[in-house]
């Protein structure tokens, strides 16, 4: 493996074990607000990914300067300044993208997962680890947003990645799929309660998979001594 043990553990934590939504149950506000469609989920996920990497890096660089008594106001200040910077710069230099993503960027400030990572990880770890953690946590969040958005979009309107070409450019038109044609629509899933319901289903799914993995591991440990005996 080209990644050392530490990096692999951070990656596994960020994407699966300690996933922002499934593991920590954080960031539910932006999660439920934007996952009406897979495209919106993707947009929010990308914006959050950029900001969480930057905020993790920035906080890790300055971690020795920050006294623990005033760390929370400094984290909030840094994250808010960062989000505003991204917001202004994107509005000026990537205006087309901003018109689609603009709404989500301001929402990132309400994402407590950023503060959570700053507090729990970036303020105690070297910069390289903090950046990697930001990338992995961001990716984990992005995957959940897209999965939840896709699940809600399919059940509510029978399409997948509708309007993806507006967000990503014409070359991504192939993503737009009508999964169920002539679908009458199921409004509940497009509304916030649908977000809660679908999140619950996804969390149950994750728990079931975890259980299966744990069972398999248990059965493997039972088998091992048998093999050892045969060899000796």
């Amino acid at each position, binding site marked *: 493996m080209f990644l050392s043990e530490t990096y692999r553990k951070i990656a596994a934590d960020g994407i699966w074990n300690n996933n922002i939504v499934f593991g920590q149950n954080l960031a539910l506000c932006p999660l439920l607000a934007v996952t009406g469609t897979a495209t919106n989920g993707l947009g929010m996920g990308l914006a959050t990914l950029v900001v969480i990497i930057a905020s993790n890096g920035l906080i890790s660089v300055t971690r020795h300067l920050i006294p623990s008594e005033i760390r929370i106001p400094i984290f909030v*200040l840094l994250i808010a*300044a960062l989000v505003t*910077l991204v917001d*202004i710069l994107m509005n*000026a*230099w990537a205006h087309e993208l901003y018109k689609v993503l603009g709404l989500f960027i301001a929402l990132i400030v309400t994402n407590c997962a950023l503060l959570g990572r700053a507090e729990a990880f970036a303020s105690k770890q070297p910069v390289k680890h903090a950046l990697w953690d930001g990338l992995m946590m961001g990716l984990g969040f992005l995957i959940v947003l897209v999965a939840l958005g896709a699940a809600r979009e399919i059940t*509510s309107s029978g399409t997948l990645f509708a309007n993806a070409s507006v967000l990503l450019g014409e070359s991504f038109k192939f993503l737009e799929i009508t999964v169920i044609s002539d679908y009458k*629509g199921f409004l509940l899933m497009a509304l916030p309660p649908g977000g809660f319901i679908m999140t619950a289903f996804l969390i149950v799914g994750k728990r079931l998979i975890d259980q299966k993995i744990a069972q398999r591991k248990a059965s493997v440990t039972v088998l091992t001594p048998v093999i050892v005996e045969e060899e000796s």
Partner: protein
Amino acid sequence: MKLDPATIERLKQKIAVYREFLKNWLEPSNLAQLRPKLEFQTGVLAGFALIASVLLGVTNCSTEGTIQRRLDEDLKKSLEEVVPAALYDNDMLQDTLTIPSAEYNIGTDETTVYIAKKSGNVSAVCFKFTAPDGYSGAINMIMGIDRDGNVLGVRVLSHKETPGLGDKIEVAKSDWILKFTGRSLDNLAPAKWAVKKDGGEFDQFAGATITPRKSVQAIYRGLQLFKAHQEQLINP
């Protein structure tokens, strides 16, 4: 100004001293001693706030013009959508008139009207207006009207209506909004400016009646605003 080698050498030494001091000061062990001190904490918080505000201030100032240009381009694009290019040869962003619109309930007390002129004569007008009472918030629209009061085009600029149901007012999702083109207060009776469920001319959507109903009503009010100021607008 020319500096002699001795001065440069002295400056270099000074910088080296400062760098050494900063390096020692930034050592984790030194900072660990400083961190519990109240004056250090105050200073750090102030420092972070200062850096953040300077950064934001500089970025804001340096991008203000660009953002304004982008917004102008956006506005121009939406103006072009509702006023056919054949109807004007002026810069509509510069040719504006502000009229009071408080009594028409279209979102603002004053409405900026962009005037389209062809060889100096007013051919059409265009303005933004709002249906403040959409199903889940305001629906912002823009409308072009020719000098006789016929609708040239209406577009929704932004809204918060239910995705999949109410968002059919967008031209990207359905051609519903195009049905207004060519209508006017003269060729459609006031009672017909409503959705079909209310005995009017325009379709409602399956599962969403409020969104199209309120949009039709706002467009109707917008036309009334134009009619009330028609003389003033087309004879500037």
